[in-house]
């Protein structure tokens, strides 16, 4: 299992892996917003956490469709399916999601404080947003795995995966952003939405890999 994690991490980081593309996309989305909404610093600070979250959500969906499609194209998926007796398929999917998150999404989380500065957020808001991204984005990877597994046989499944996955990630977005706001705006609570966000991640960490494994088994041809 560690071997699978290391392999996927290497693939993600090396040329063609797409990890860098995600960061560039995130950077582009967030950098464009101030030009769109104008130089109102207060407004930017207010919408900052939401923009960071939406940018990170879209950027983390970018490479997801290749999660299983690349494996299927080069035949590795067959071998992974056959290894079911040795490595439970859901566990393999879980490890692949973790590797995808580490290679493609963790850099987004690391870059988000810098982009928070672009949005004129105060240090507390930046910290809270980064923390919620760190806790919430794994859920997006686990939900995305289901979409990637369903669309594994489709030649242009990229957009379909995003459309399938986006509605399911809405709760993650809602609680992530409301926790980030809760840390900055006084009457709003921080802990309850944050804990729900953590619960969502744990929930999808279990449901996602199992659903994706089922889809992969049903979709082999």
């Amino acid at each position, binding site marked *: 299992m*560690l*071997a*699978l994690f*290391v*392999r996927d991490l*290497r*693939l993600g980081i*090396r*040329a*063609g*892996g797409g990890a860098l593309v995600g960061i560039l996309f995130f950077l582009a989305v967030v950098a464009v917003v101030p030009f769109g909404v104008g130089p109102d610093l207060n407004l930017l600070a207010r919408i900052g956490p939401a923009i960071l979250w939406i940018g990170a959500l879209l950027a983390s969906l970018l490479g997801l469709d290749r999660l299983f499609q690349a494996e299927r*194209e*080069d*035949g*590795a998926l*067959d*071998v*992974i*399916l*056959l*290894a*079911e*007796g*040795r*490595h439970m398929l859901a566990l393999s999917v879980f490890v692949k999601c973790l590797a995808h998150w580490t290679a493609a999404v963790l850099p987004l989380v690391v870059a988000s404080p810098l982009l928070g500065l672009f949005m004129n957020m105060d240090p507390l808001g930046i910290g809270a947003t980064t923390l919620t991204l760190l806790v919430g984005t794994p859920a997006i990877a686990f939900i995305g795995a289901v979409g990637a597994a369903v669309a594994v046989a489709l030649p242009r499944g990229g957009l379909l995966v995003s459309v399938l996955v986006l509605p399911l990630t809405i709760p993650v977005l809602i609680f992530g952003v409301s926790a980030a706001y809760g840390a900055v705006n006084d009457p709003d609570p921080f802990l309850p939405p944050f804990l729900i966000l953590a619960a969502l991640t744990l929930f999808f960490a279990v449901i996602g890999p199992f659903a994706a494994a089922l889809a992969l088994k049903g979709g*082999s*041809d």
Partner: protein
Amino acid sequence: MNLLHRTGWSGAAGELEGMRLIAENLAGERGGEPVFSDVSFAIGEGEGLVVTGPNGAGKSTLLRIVAGLLPASGGLIRLDGGGEQWPDIASACHYLGHANAMKTALSVDENLHFWQDFAGEPHLPIDEALDMVGLPQIGHLPYGYLSTGQKRRIAIARLLVSYRPVWLLDEPTAGLDKASEGQFAALMRAHLEDGGIILAATHLPLGLEGAKALKMGEHRE
């Protein structure tokens, strides 16, 4: 129009001891169309079965059904005498399909190391396996740099780095030159002498003397 045909395998029934791969009246379909039916064979330890037939006769479908990647539409396939170590065919087989199951962005060594770790049951060290396929000192190269035939030989080396008693080979010599074909035939003979089982689909002669033959797609209607 159905491509139905009967098959019979030549040769006497093997001894009853040891591991046996048995298919009884196996039928397969692709996209709802029956491709073959009534395929029966039994392969014991140290025996090979070469499946031949024209394109579209269902050779690959048969192999995928035997591996368990596709459901059979009739009949059954089982592995007898595998004991606790090899409870089913999926756990006991190496499946070499059309695709090589290697990542172009990783080096040959990294690819083989991964499959050795992932598949378990380490057999030959990587260096030795590369020697066996006639490609020593190539391990550091990215897999994507290799020629078609070299890629295929690395995929064959995957069969050697971890042990499985049953080899399911789909056009294993596609892209190989004469010398490599001879080398691969020797590897297959060595595997059979070790008590292995080989089921190979091909339209090229494999140089596997003494192997049983199964001709598919002969009686077209």
